[in-house]
């Protein structure tokens, strides 16, 4: 009985987060997270960056849930590896755009830098194709 209680207590402690942490993602690594999720691209228009992002998402087997040109956002879903959702936001800068992506797998935010490295590697290919109007 004792061991069962210890086991249950351990399991409940593993997932223990306050409401504030659950709703706002806690604090601390905000800048670091932003950095690994962001890519700056020069000599590209907002439209080209958004179209390239959408093409990449299709390449990666996502379907588009929402797209908003004015906000520069695209949200998409993929149904392999559970349910993966991603939002890409493109913002115009002086020299080009910044592209930020953040993804979740079900209730878990994807924090592995490799996720974003892989996404931006795929995006680079689409950017080349869109800028050169080859598709």
């Amino acid at each position, binding site marked *: 009985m004792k061991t069962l209680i210890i086991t249950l207590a351990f399991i409940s402690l593993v997932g223990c987060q306050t409401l504030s942490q659950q709703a706002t993602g806690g604090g601390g690594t905000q800048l670091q997270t932003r950095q690994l999720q962001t890519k700056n691209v020069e000599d590209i228009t907002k439209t080209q960056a958004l179209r390239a992002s959408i093409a990449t998402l*299709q390449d990666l*087997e996502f379907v588009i849930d929402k797209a908003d040109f004015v906000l520069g956002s695209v949200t998409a879903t993929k*149904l392999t*590896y559970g349910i993966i959702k991603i939002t890409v936001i493109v913002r115009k800068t002086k020299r080009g755009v910044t592209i930020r992506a953040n993804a979740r797998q079900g209730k878990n935010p*994807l924090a*592995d830098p490799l996720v974003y490295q892989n996404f931006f590697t*795929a995006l680079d290919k689409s950017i080349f194709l869109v800028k050169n109007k080859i598709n």
Partner: protein
Amino acid sequence: MSITKILSITLAAAILTGCVGNPVEAFKLSATNLQDRQIQSRVYKKIKEESILAASAAVFQDMGYTLSESETRLGVITATKDADATDGGQVALAIFAALFGGGQAAIDDKQRFTTTIVVLPRGSSDTHTVRMTMQRVVWNTQGNVSKLETIKDETVYKTFFEKLSKAVFLEKNI
């Protein structure tokens, strides 16, 4: 209860509450990416982007879909459709299992298709690539999700583009 047993139970519980595959792989282009893109794309010449989008929306309506999102400035339309998912083979197996005392097996019941059309301008003016991608979620008779998948069946795309080609023809000649 031994330490090993406690550890195994704890680990099993942790695994059950956690992950579904390695998401890093989900962001890599698959080996069949180029082939998939070809199956899912067609090029249309001498037609404006807004006319292709109008033709695509009309085809979605023809197929019984409702539009859930559109952003014409980015050439995107997404549509969904709920449909029956009953599979004759599964029904036969379930009856067979019940006859031999296997109890009532859950079989596929209903499904939701989500389809995105993206129109991309190509080099020459009024030439566009249209790419369609499709996913589905299937629920079984117990109300649980039984399938989450990207549709790769070539026939689905072939049929869709046959319909779209007709709609584009109509759009050009209206």
